[in-house]
């Protein structure tokens, strides 16, 4: 899917993204702490089923199980050298999960784990090389577009974007911001609106925010960013605050409250909405119902 084709889809109406993936897989038995990328090889039916659930819930766009499938992350997961194979498997599983629906397969790209100084020693060419390897693997396997998510360093986001653009596919780029006293910033200190504008100027086809915050906080970000971003805005908040319970970690938001916040974000100008940590297909179905009722 080219930038123009994505633009036409968004012009026709807002797009509903998917929700969290890791939590769905954990519910299926993925050991907490283990990278979900393993399941592209070990439990393909569970990965396929996650995509199917989001497709049924009404997602227009479903992400591949490749958030941690950049070469450095794969190496950390004990899967060094298997970037092409794992990314290809994930694209195939997402596509099979949709099974004939009209979903867009977004090749998911998360932070590489490499850091620029002073946090680390990574260089721009290094970042570019590893993201290019993953982006090309996703593109070759037939991803419709590429989706960079949860970036907390604008320099890495820009490097990832540059790498993704070489594939010719449309590219979504989303960063993660916290609320500080002076506004919204990444942990590295990148401010919300200037960061999104930099990404738009560098050729991102949609820009926005995911993770870190709950829907009410993200609504405030949308109100600030939507008029200024320059390209369609993405919003994917977490389900709520994680709460530890004897049976495990749960989130304190319910799908109805989440959907009402997401409807407000659409009202405020967001064009691609979905969920991040703690959200599942029930959340996405609730947002779909809210969108239908607008």
């Amino acid at each position, binding site marked *: 899917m080219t930038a123009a084709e994505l633009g036409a889809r968004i012009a026709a109406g807002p797009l509903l993204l998917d929700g969290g993936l890791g939590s769905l897989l954990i519910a299926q038995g993925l050991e907490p702490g283990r990278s979900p990328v393993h399941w592209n090889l070990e439990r393909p039916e569970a990965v396929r089923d996650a995509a199917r659930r989001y497709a049924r819930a009404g997602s227009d766009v479903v992400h591949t199980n490749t958030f941690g499938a950049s070469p450095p*992350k794969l190496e*950390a997961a004990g899967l060094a050298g298997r970037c092409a194979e794992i990314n290809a498997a994930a694209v195939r599983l997402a596509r099979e999960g949709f099974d004939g629906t009209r979903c867009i397969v977004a090749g998911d790209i998360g932070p590489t784990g490499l850091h620029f100084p002073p946090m680390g020693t990574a260089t721009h060419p290094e970042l570019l090389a590893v993201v290019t390897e993953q982006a090309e693997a996703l593109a070759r396997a037939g991803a419709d577009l590429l989706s960079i998510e949860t970036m907390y360093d604008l320099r890495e986001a820009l490097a990832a974007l540059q790498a993704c653009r070489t594939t010719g596919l449309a590219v979504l780029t989303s960063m993660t911001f916290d609320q500080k006293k002076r506004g919204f910033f*990444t*942990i590295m200190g990148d401010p919300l609106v200037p960061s999104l504008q930099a990404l738009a100027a560098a050729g991102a086809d949609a820009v926005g925010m995911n993770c870190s915050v709950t829907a009410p906080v993200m609504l405030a970000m949308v109100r600030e960013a939507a008029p200024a971003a320059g390209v369609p805005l993405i919003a994917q908040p977490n389900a709520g605050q994680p709460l530890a319970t004897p049976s495990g970690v749960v989130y304190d938001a319910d799908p109805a409250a989440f959907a009402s916040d997401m409807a407000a974000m659409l009202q405020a100008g967001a064009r691609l909405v979905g969920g991040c940590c703690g959200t599942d297909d029930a959340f996405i179905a609730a947002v779909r119902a809210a969108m239908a009722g607008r």
Partner: protein
Amino acid sequence: MAHEELLAGLRQAVLDCDEPRAARLAREALDTGMPALRAIDGGLVPGIQEAGRLWDEGEFFLPELVGAAGAMKAAMAVLQPALAGGGSRELGRIVIGTVQGDIHDIGKSLVATLLAANGFAVSDEGADVPVERFVTRARELDADLVCASALLTTTMVQQRTLVEALRAAGLRARVMVGGAPVTPAWAAQIGAAGFADNAVAAVAVARGLVRS
């Protein structure tokens, strides 16, 4: 340079993330006869505490905090040998790491750096550390404290396993937990002795835990 001026300079060098200047001023301080302890307590510690305050205020971000800790470390490298003569100032022995399955390193490293800069003997085990490794190191070092970071809701359960494993091993080390999804309620629920939601707080909590 007068002592007061040197102390203010050290404090500012930390805030400016200026490693060479921090090291140079530390040497000057020793050359003028200032006790190393005074340079630390009157210059470096106020600097790093101010950095922590600016972080809380949203004025400093991770690069500044890491830079300030780096400047403090550079000065400490100069001052440490002078301290050794006057008796060890080691506050306690700490084993720190990010739990297994979690490769988030930044926050944990920052805590480790600040703990070391504040006088603890710190063994940083890195990220993706199995519970058995924490236990082994705690036993080897007779650690006072084991600090475990978890940045994912999916890995924080390892913190509970760690508390249980240390207890089962009969070790005296107490546990401090931290990381984005970790709350005081979670710490209490799993039986961790301490919780900190940032690196500056971690130092204060660690001080309290090794004293009590």
